[in-house]
Structure formats: C-alpha cells, structure tokens
C-alpha cells in the first residue's frame, strides 16, 4: 500500500481528502502545519507528500524547500496545493522544489491523476 502524507491545516479539507484517498487504497498520514509535516515526513518517509501552501508555523514553500534539502526526504515527490486565485503561487511552488501542483478547490479525479503520475513505479496502486 502506498503511503501518502497530507499536510493541510483546514480540518474539513483534511478529513475529506484523507477519506477519499483511503477509499482509493492509499494509506494516508496527516500533518496540520509545515513543521509537523517535515517531522512526519522524516519519521515515516512516505511515497508522496501532498502539501497545502498556506500553512501555519512554517508555510508550504519553506517546508518544501527544507524537505528538498534533507538527504533522507529530498527524493520524495511533493504535490503542492495552491489557491486558484493566486496566479503567482504555482510558480513559487515549483520554484520552492515542488514536483507538481494542483489548485484548490480540488478536482479529485485530476488530483488522483497527478498523484499516480508522481508515485515511484507510476500507477501501481495496491
């Protein structure tokens, strides 16, 4: 089973996304801010990280930058979730080291496609 880490501060979004991802056969770990995200990623080494960009404590851009600097976490793909309204945000997400991005509100089918593309051994969902 592929292990995903979802870093998202909004409780409803977190609950909804994690349940839907679990229905698709993923194991979902949760973190509610950037600092916790880095800690969880370092401890559990997930197959992929879905990272909201506007996070408390440490924002998504900085968290991604740090994950990509750490040897143990730098190969984990990071999928950024950015607010639709802010055109500059997606460029900043990629510049921070994110491997791909998607906009909120989430189009779940599209998000699944992006997740599968990024996972090592693409598409192999347990």
């Amino acid at each position: 089973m592929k292990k995903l880490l979802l870093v998202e501060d909004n409780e409803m979004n977190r609950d909804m996304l994690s349940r839907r991802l679990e229905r698709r056969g993923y194991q979902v770990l949760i973190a509610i801010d950037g600092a916790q995200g880095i800690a969880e990623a370092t401890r559990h080494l997930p197959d992929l990280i879905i990272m909201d960009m506007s996070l408390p404590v440490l924002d998504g851009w900085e968290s991604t930058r740090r994950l990509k600097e750490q040897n143990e976490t730098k190969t984990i793909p990071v999928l950024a979730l950015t607010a639709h309204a802010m055109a500059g945000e997606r460029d900043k997400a990629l510049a921070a080291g994110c491997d791909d991005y998607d906009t909120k509100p989430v189009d779940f089918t599209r998000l699944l496609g992006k997740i599968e593309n990024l996972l090592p051994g693409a598409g192999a969902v347990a």
Partner: protein
Amino acid sequence: MTSSVPSAGPSEATYRSIVEHAIEGIFQTTPDGRYLLANPALAHIYGYASIEELFGNVQEIARQLYVDPERRTEFIRLMNEHDSVWGFESPIYRKDGSIIWISENVRVIRGADGKVEYYEGTVEDITERKRAEEELRRAKTAAEEASRSKSQFLANMSHELRTPLNAIIGYSELMREEAEDMGLESFIRDLAKIESAGKHLLELINGVLDIAKIEAGKMEVHAETFEVTKMLHEVATTITPVVERNNNHFEVVPTGELGTMHTDLTKIRQSLFNLLGNAGKFTNQGLIRLEAERVATPEGDWLHFSVRDTGVGMTAEQMAKIFGAFTQADASTTRKFGGTGLGLAITREFSRMVGGDTIVESQPGKGSVFTMRIPANFKNAQDEHPVVEPEPVRTGDIPIAEGDQPLVLLIDDDLTVHDLVRRFLHKEGFRVVCASSGAEGIELARKLQPSIIVLDVMMPTMDGWSVLTRLKGDAEVSDIPVVMLTMVNNKEMGFSLGVDDYMLKPIERGGFVSVLRKYCSPQGSPTVLVVEDDQTTREMLRASLEKEHFTVVEAVNGADGLRQLQNVRPAVVLLDLMMPEMDGFQFTQEVRANSQWRDIPILVMTAKDIDADDRARLDGQVSRILQKGACGRDELLAEITSRIARATRPNELIAV
C-alpha cells in the same frame, strides 16, 4: 441729452450708464499692465470699495492681480495672435488676499499704425462655478475610489467563499461514491444534484472573482512563450465533451503556420473555453468551428481565433449588450440556457489586457462568429516595453538617473512590481533601481549603497529572509535600512532578523511613500508645511511648490499645523496669520517655545496690513513676512529655497 429727437445712436450718457451699472466688470488696460478705465463692478469683483481705490492700489496687473503672473504673459500672447480672447480663466487675488476665479472676454484696440493701444473687455467672477466643478471632480474621484474598494472587497470575499464550497463539493462527491458502493440509488441522485449545484456555484464565484479583479485593477498579465497549435489541441481536448453535448459537431481549422506566441496563456485558454462553451450552449445539432490564423502586420504578428457556430444567433440590439458584465442577450436567455453572463465580459477584458480585442458578428437564426485578435507578442502598451523580460537585468547596464535624490533599491522577483514602484517613486522624487533576485539585490546594495532597501519576502531560490540575513551580516551594507514587502504579517521574525519596517502587499501607494520618507526624506524635495485656512490658496501653493519638487504638507489652521509638526519636520513653514481656531501669531509662539522646532524657518504670508504692533509680536520669531498679492510666485520660491539653504545655520534666522 434728453432730446426727443431720435439720434443716430445711444448718447454718451447712455454708454456711461451701461458701464456704470453693468454687473460684469468692464475695463481698458495698457499693454504694460495699467488701468485706463474700470467700472464699479470691476472694483467690486476685486474687493475694492471704489474704482479710485482699485487704481490707487493696482499699478502692475500681472504681479498684483494674477496669482500666477504668467497668466498675463499668456493673455498678451493670445491677444497678439488672435486679437481677441474669449473665456480666459485665471485665479486672481482680491484686495484682502483671498483668491477668486475670473473669466475674461477681451479684444485688442489698435491705432492707425497697427500698434496695440489698449485692451478692453469684461470680467466675470466664476469662483462659484469653479468650486462646483471642483466638487464634481472630487465626487467623481470618490465614487471611483468606492467602486474600487467594492471590487477589492468582492475579490477577497470570493476567495473566502471558495473554502466552504470546497468542503461541500468534496463531501458530496465522497458521499455519492459511498452511496454507490452501498447501492443507495435515491441517495446517489440527490447527492449528484448537490455536487452539480456546488460546481455551478463555484463557476459563478470564479466569474465574479475575475470581474472583480479586473475592475479593481488587480488582474495581472503573466506572459509566457507557447506553441499555438499545441495550445489549441489542449483546449479542444478539454472542451469537446461540452461543445458536443447538444449533438453538435466540433472541428478545429488552423490556417497556415501558427508558430508561437508570447502572451498570457491562461487568459487566452480561458477566453477560448468561454467562447466555445457559449457556442455549444446556444447551438443544437449544429456545427461549431474553431479557426485560427497568423496575420502579419507592420506592427508585428497577430493571431486571429474565431469561434463560428450555427446556433440561435443574435439581433444587433442583443449584440450591443452581450459584452457587459451580468448581461446575456435577454433575461429569458438566462432561464433557458443558464450561465453567469460573465464569460463574454471576461473574454473581452482578457483579450484587451493582452493588447487585442474580441468582436462578434451574428444574425438571428444564422449563428454567430466571435473573433479574438491577439498580438503574438505581448507588450505593455502604457510604457512600451515588455513587462516581463525573460533575462534578468545585468548589473552593469542599469540606468540610474543622475541626481542627489535618495536611491531606493527594490528587490522583488515580480517585474510588474518593479515597473509600478519605479513609476510612482520617480514621481515622488526618489531614484529607483530594481533587482529581480536576492543575489542580484545583495550585489547592487554593495555597489550602489542605496539610501534604503525594499525587500520582497517571497522570492524563488533565495527568499527575502535569507537576503535580509545576508544584508545585515555584511558590514558594508548592514546600516542601510531595510523595509520588507510581505503579504503575511510576520513581525516577530522580521524584527529579530533586523528589519526596520514593514509594508503589506498589495502595495498601497500613499503608505509606501510615507514609510520611505521616514527613512530618507528626498533631499531633492524638502518638505514645506503650508498653514493656511483658505483652501484655494493652499491648493495654489501646493501646485506651485510641487512643480518645483517640494513635498507639501497642509494644515488648515495653527492647531492643525502643530499636529502636523508631530509627524513631519518641514524645511520651511509657510504661515498665514489670520486663521480660525489658532492664528499665525499663536502658532509661531508655540513653535518657538518648542526646542525641537525652534530652528524651523517660518515665512509669514499675509494679506493683513502688518502694523508696528504685529511686527513686534513677530519680531525675532519669523524669518520673513511676505505680503500676499504683492509677492509673486518666483519670489516666494526663491525665498523658500534660500531659507532652506540657510537652515543649516539656524543662527542666521532674523526677521525682516
């Protein structure tokens, strides 16, 4: 003279009576600016008790009457050119120093030799009209401002609306999937309706947000280079299911080689989606074509995209309305076809933002053709250089205007911010140099030693915090004040790293400039505090002073003046004496009693006749007393400049 015999014309007495009793001022003046004749109305308009008093006081019209002596020169120039002037409007000093607006109708009288003998004409007091015009202008500005705030509010609000909607759509999708697993047929249908209504609502909010951003001037162009054919292919793939929904046939028809474009891809794509989505909606069992062609013109290449349908079409009247926000061809259209009515307004605005336009041709029953014409290479029309430069500017060839105005170094990756900041700071008397990355910024800071650094927090590769740490750790530049530009408040972090001040993005011009002034008052534009109760005079002074690159701070009376001194330290105070609440005498005393303000030069400008008593009260307190009306603009400016020069040696301040 009271003859009953009809004469050839009105008698001299009649003429005299007309002149004496006219409501308009009537005059004759010599080319060198003296009065030959005036009527009582003229003396009255200018605030004199009689014609005699007017003649006795005014020997030099250009300097004594006109607030701007250049008006008289301009007047004479026009007279020489046209022999008459109609509706020549100027501000004028009345006897008491107050300012009124007049309108003159004048013609030239020449002698037999063609030389100008005198000018004659009429004067009308138009102060009320001018005031009304000014109020109207202000009301208009206020209304535009209110409209912008409203749009700004909408933009923020729409963003907030999305967050709960995200949950509504997500949970209804989740529940529908679970209901499918459990085989709960009736639930599936209802949950699908919630989901579909949620998605529709999201579309509406997105449209409103786009319109609000366009109106608030917050919609930005992000140009990138892309292949047109590839873009069309992607658009077609995405939109085909929507266009073919009403059993329509859809085809893409490119003509010739389309090449690449350098413009805002997202906006072009969204515009094509809007046009194609509309065509699909209003066409049933018909044909929809997306045509594209590259057209060369002397101004460069353009791309023409046409969306042609065989649908319901429109009348001329309907066509005139469809590009307005919130309008469809008519209200029944909304009921029949749904939609927001925003798509076409957005499409047209988008195409105009990138330098093109969208037009429509249509006939009822025959279908419609929407054509979007877009320049292949986006140029910012306002300043005629591209907003987005693909390569970063090299430090070697940055043009920096010569001068001793303070130099502001802006470090921001967003080139549209460079452009904006450069333009408005230039007007405020700063020189600006821009860096688009942290590394470049640090290098420029070392090389140019700017007066202040404005630093954006969010930048790729090296963010603002890292740049700040480097700047503050470098002895060569560590004492240069740094102001952070940020979208998020993170003061603790900033101050601990040595930030001097903060500004929130989006940049608000007034706040930005006042923060900069805190750290570096432009030497090229010293501040003048104008303490004057008459609004017209204040505005006049502001205009003259700003033209000479002074920064003007206004106060409406002495008390207000003292309040202003708490915030700014002017190089000179221009002071009126007669003011409500606190007059100029008391103001002067208060200023001189304060050790921090004691050495600020004060220039008194007064319409009051200064008597020995007044002089005694001001003696040793003020730098100079200038008589309003008697002192021309140039004299005033020269006086201010010399006071500023002397202010470095405050002991020299002596009243005259």
